């Protein structure tokens, strides 16, 4: 993890991938939580593995934010419009989005229906992809861009894998289940 030079203003933006609605904490907890109600092992494995990868991405974002504020003092935070961070957390990290809104479990859905949950996961990957695109646009630091591009690409791969799993779950539900008017039941 490398940054060319500290940039408190950009740290304030990229913190959303730490504790924002489409950030890495939301992603990892969403998948590691939803895996329990998946209908077969393959789907459980995929959610476990992507959820675990997202935990690693969360560490990358944490390291990135920490390096972007390295050496910054009160005045630097004020100049970046992030004095609230300095007052409440100094150089400590905190789970918020780019507007300072704290992380909440409301960002995560778990409906217990594998089709619904996997569809949500695909949307989540697209939202994270878009957020990374906005962030890449907002920095000129080539090292930071590199890191964000790597994370951007992973969202694309995860979307692909979730899509494949959604197809399989759809097929499985159609083969082994019957629609009884309001829910799927085993045939």
């Amino acid at each position, binding site marked *: 993890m490398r940054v060319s030079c500290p940039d408190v203003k950009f740290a304030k933006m990229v913190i959303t991938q730490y504790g924002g609605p489409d950030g890495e904490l939301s992603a990892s907890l969403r998948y590691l939580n939803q895996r329990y109600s998946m209908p077969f092992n393959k789907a459980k494995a995929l959610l476990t593995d992507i959820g675990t*990868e997202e935990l690693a991405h969360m560490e990358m974002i944490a390291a990135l934010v920490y390096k972007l504020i390295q050496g910054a003092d009160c005045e630097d935070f004020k100049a970046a419009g992030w004095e609230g961070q300095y007052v409440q957390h100094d150089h400590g990290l905190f789970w918020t989005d780019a507007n300072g809104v704290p992380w909440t479990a409301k960002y995560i859905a778990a409906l217990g229906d594998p089709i619904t949950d996997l569809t949500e996961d695909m949307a989540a990957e697209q939202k994270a992809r878009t957020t990374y695109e906005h962030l890449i646009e907002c920095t000129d630091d080539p090292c930071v861009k590199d890191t964000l591009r790597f994370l951007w690409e992973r969202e694309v791969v995860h979307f692909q*894998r979730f899509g494949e*799993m959604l197809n399989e779950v759809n097929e499985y539900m159609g083969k082994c289940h019957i629609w009884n008017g309001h829910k799927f039941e085993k045939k």
Partner: protein
Amino acid sequence: MNCEKQLAMLKRIQEMEFVAVELNLYLDTHPCDEDAINDYNCAVDALCKLKKEYEEEYGPLMNFGFSYSDKPWQWIESPWPWEM
């Protein structure tokens, strides 16, 4: 401290770990692709070798029973991912 060599070795481990993660996710949805399983197993072999070389020189990459430690306790001296 010869940081450059250590970082280069860590980078090779990270690269091979990335190969393993990517193949792992692919195999989760394509479990019958034998070529991919062979590639995955190659990545496992390569990773074991790289990690062994690294740990012999610089100490444990993992704690909680996955790696040995010299004396004194080496884990607290390792460069952690968030410090690299």
